Each structure stands twice: as C-alpha cells, then as structure tokens.
C-alpha cells in the first residue's frame, strides 16, 4: 500500500472551495428527488408539499387504481415493451456497426457524421420529421387502396404511426449514437492479437466472434443494452410527434403534471425511478458476474 507512505501535502484553499461547490452540486442533484421520494409516502390527507401527514402506501394504491382517464398500467406495459425492443435493436445494430467500423468501410466517415448529427439534432425536429413521414405514408397507402377499390381494407386502415414503427425508429435515432460511441471506445482498447490467435488455430470468423470477441466485449454489450433501455424508458421529446394515438409512460406523465394535483404523481415518479435504478442495478450485477467468470476462466 504505497498510499500510507506518501507524505500528505496540505490541501490548497481552492480544494476546500471546490469541495463545497461539489457537495452543494450533489445536494442540488439529489435533494429534490429525495423530497418527492419521501412525499410519495404521504398519508391519505397529505398534499403536494411538506409537512408529511402520516406515512402510508395510499398514493401507490391510488396509482394502481388509475389516475382519472389515464390507464397507467397500459402505458407502463407499452413503455416496457418499447424499451425492450429498443434495447434489443440497439445492442444488435451497434455491435454489428462497431465490427464494421473496424474494417475498411467506404463512406464510414459520412455514416459517423450522420450518427453524431442525430445525437445533437434538436429532438423536436427529428420527431416532427418522423411524424410527417408516417403521415405521408398513410396518405400514400390510402390512395393506393382507393385506386385498387379495396373499400374494406381502406376502412380498416388506421395509421402506420405506432409503437413499433415510428416510435421505435425515433428512439433508435437517440440510442444508437450512444451505442456506437461505446463500441468505438471498446474496440479502441481491443487487442486484435486474440482474434489472430483464434484464426491461426483455424477458427471460422463466426467462431472467432462467438468464442473470443463476444466474451471479451460482453460487459460493454450489457452496458449498451442498459443505455438503450433507460434512454428509451425516459424519452419524451423524440416520441412526442412520432407515436400516434397511444402514449408511453413519460408522455402520460408529462400530461399529468398539469392535471394531477395529488401525491399520486410523486408515487408514479418513484415507481419509474425505481424501474430505472433496477435496470441499472441488474446491469451492474451482470457486468460484475461476467467479469468474475472471465477472471475465473483465466
């Protein structure tokens, strides 16, 4: 332990000033969230602010019973389903693209530029564009059905806007840049000697990927999955114009902020935060397990 031998220099005054700034910043970040977490356990007579009147799960029960016209359960299921789909696509597409960028990729620079552009594009513009695209597709499909005279199909046709069409695409334009940047970071530190060794031993490209590359990058792949899910789970701006008739949980929540004036909205906040943290916790546990297996196999 070299630390114990080091002579500790006295801290300069700037250290204490900045330490105070940092402590206040952390308080600023966590304080308000802690407040709504506590307030969501208000008793039945409790209101939106302190003091805490009793301690109960009343507002969570209220939440389960439903808030006005909004079906929270359905929105929650939709958000979960969409989050899982986004997660799967983000992992698959980022890993594949990460592999592609290691090889000679004509136009790779342009593709990278587009991906980064998507990351910094104001979400409302992307969302509006996707909404427009699917509305134009709708008019196109309707025109074709009319031309063909398929009245039944025409009447049955609603819209192509939806959870797994336009909303999925909108979310991917937000999650994939993160996924790709993580893959870049991973492969920048990746030693190709392992692959060469596998090739020399006669492994096919698929075997090399499956048994050598994938286990080595597994923790990062899990991380990309987490990024994909949590970014989608909390996304509003890109979904807003691109989802059609149904809503995801964050969109419902945004609507509820102006109508619901009971702590039930804090309870909903606590629930969504718990889901986010649970996903993060599972991810960290999984990464840790993968790391231990790797260490054990060595």
């Amino acid at each position, binding site marked *: 332990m070299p630390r114990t031998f080091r002579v500790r220099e006295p801290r300069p005054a700037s250290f204490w000033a900045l330490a105070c700034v*940092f402590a206040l910043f952390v308080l600023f970040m966590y304080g308000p969230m802690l407040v*709504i977490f506590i307030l969501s356990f208000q008793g039945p007579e409790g209101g939106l602010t*302190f003091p805490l009147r009793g301690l109960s799960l009343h507002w969570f029960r209220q939440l389960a019973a439903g808030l006005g016209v909004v079906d929270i359960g359905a929105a929650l299921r939709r958000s979960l389903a969409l989050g899982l789909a986004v997660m799967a696509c983000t992992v698959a597409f980022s890993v594949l693209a990460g592999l592609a960028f290691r090889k*000679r990729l004509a136009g790779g620079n342009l593709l990278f530029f587009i*991906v980064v552009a998507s990351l*910094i594009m104001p979400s*409302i513009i992307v969302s509006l564009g*996707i909404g427009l695209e699917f509305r134009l597709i709708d008019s196109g499909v309707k025109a074709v059905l009319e031309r063909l005279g398929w009245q039944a199909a025409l009447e049955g046709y609603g819209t192509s806007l939806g959870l797994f069409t336009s909303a999925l695409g909108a979310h991917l334009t937000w999650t994939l840049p993160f996924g790709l940047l993580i893959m870049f970071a991973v492969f920048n*530190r990746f030693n190709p000697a392992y692959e060469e060794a596998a090739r020399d031993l006669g492994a096919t490209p698929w075997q090399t990927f499956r048994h050598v590359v994938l286990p080595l990058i597994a923790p990062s792949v899990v991380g990309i999955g987490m990024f994909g899910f949590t970014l989608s789970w909390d996304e509003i701006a890109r979904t807003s114009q691109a989802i059609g008739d149904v809503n995801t949980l964050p969109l419902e929540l945004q609507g509820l902020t102006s109508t619901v004036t009971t702590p039930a909205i804090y309870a909903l*906040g606590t629930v969504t935060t718990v889901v986010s943290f649970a996903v993060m916790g599972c991810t960290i546990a999984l990464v840790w397990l993968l790391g231990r297996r790797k260490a054990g196999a060595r």
Partner: protein
Amino acid sequence: MGHPTSPPTAGLPAKQGVAAWWQAAPLTLVFALFFLVPLALVLMVSFWDFSEYELLPGFTFKNYVAIFEGCADLAQPCVTLSTYLSTLKFSLLVWGITLVLGFAVAYFLAFHVRSPGMQTLLFVLCTVPFWTSNVIRMVSWVPLLGRNGLVNQTLADLRLIDTPIEWLLFSDFSVVLAFVHLYTMFMIVPIFNSMMRIDRSLIEAASDAGASGWQTLWSVVVPLSRTGIVIGSIFVLTIVMGDFVTIGVMGGQQIASVGKIIQVQTSYLQFPLAAANAVILLAIVLMVIWGLTRLVDLRKEL
C-alpha cells in the same frame, strides 16, 4: 494490453469491405429511414400549403412569410422574433451557468480528488441522476418551489418574508433552474474526459515556471480542456434551443419557445408551418455548431 496505434483497417483484404457494409447496413438503414428522410421531408413540407384537413403538395414561401409577418418593425418585435429571442436568452443563460458549474465540478474531480477509486465513485454519483426521467426531475422542484413549498415555508418561518414569493415556480427562474439541474451532466462528462487526458507534468511545469494558480488554470487547463468545453456547449445549446418539455412544465405552459411553437402547430395539424419553423431553428442551431467547431477541430480530437 497494447493499444493498437495503426488503424485496424490496415492490410485487410478487399472482400472484407463488402462484409463491413453488410454489418453496418442495419444501423445505416435506421438513420436513413428515421433521420435523413424525415429531415428531407421537413424541408420539403415547409414549402407545402395546407388546409384544415390535409397537406397540399406544392411550392410556396407562404409559411415562411407567415412566420415573419410584421417582423420588419423592430420597435415592436413580432411574436416570432420575441420567441426566438426568448429561446436564445434561455440558451445563453443555461449555457453560461452549466459551463461554469460543470467546469468547476469536473476540475474538482480531475485535479483535486487524488485516489482513482474515489474519482470514479464521485463521477458516477454525478451521472446517476441522468438515468431518471426528466419529467420526474422537473416535478421534484414543485414541493420545494411552490407557493407553499419548502423554500417559502422556511423563509416565512424565519420571518424573512410576509407573503410567499411567487416567482419561484412557473417562471423564467424555475425554467433555468430545471435546465441546469437536467443538463449540467452534459458539461461535466466531456470536460472531465478532456481534463483526464491532460499530462499532469504540464501543470507542474507551469507552477515550476512561476505561474500562479489562476494563470495555470487560464493558460494551461482551459485551452487543453477546449474539446470537452466545445462538446458540452454543443449539447447544452442544442438541447435548450429545441426544448419544449422543460419550458412547458416548468414555465407553467406560459412561456413561449421555438420548440413549443412547433409542438402547438403540429397539434393543430399545421404541419407546413411547423416544418418551416423547424427549418429556421435547424439553421440557427447549425450556425451555432459551426461557430463552435471553428474553435476546435473535433475530427482530430475524437
């Protein structure tokens, strides 16, 4: 573990170029279908006409004219101009605050925290709130800033005020506060990343050469953290300029912003108008980014 210094593409057979494109195809397709085509459509539709029920293909400057109607009179700014100015005001305020705060926090983490374990722990502590819903983080200010909120109650208990302060919530103040709360992380992460790459011997050299703390900070640390500062600034500025959720919720739906105008226009199905606004917003954002990238060659730094 050696870091490969030569590009990994060196000496690969041409056949792999084809395989690479198959691997990149899904990602490329997503961005073509859900990014490039939509942007092109926004541009196209901004020149279309519309009725109450449908979009009418054509080519007209009507939408742009409608947006800037009455803007020639500078003494009395039109709605568009004042909205853009208000959006710009929020962007600059939030940018300034997050930059100073983010730089201070990143500097503390990078240069004052000595053990790497502690550094990682504190860094993660800063990034965790990013993973919770933005709306929840906005709503969480209500019990603090509301008319009967914690701040007003405390001030009243201390007999500092007689009537509750009204401007704490649903005001410019609460909007800026929420933005800082939500997006300082976007400054901390890139600036911290840049600072960690600074060779520590440069700092020692500066102090050996007799530079004061401020001189070292201004002449060594700031220029070498430039990449992080620019990346963080791009994030914060583009997010705030396009925002409509934060301004809506924290402004009590009373404060106008470009993003909000676009959202309202689409809810009335005035897509060509919304598209024209989006094109103008995009042009401004691109100019800002272009200006910022003049300061640093991002390509070289990545």
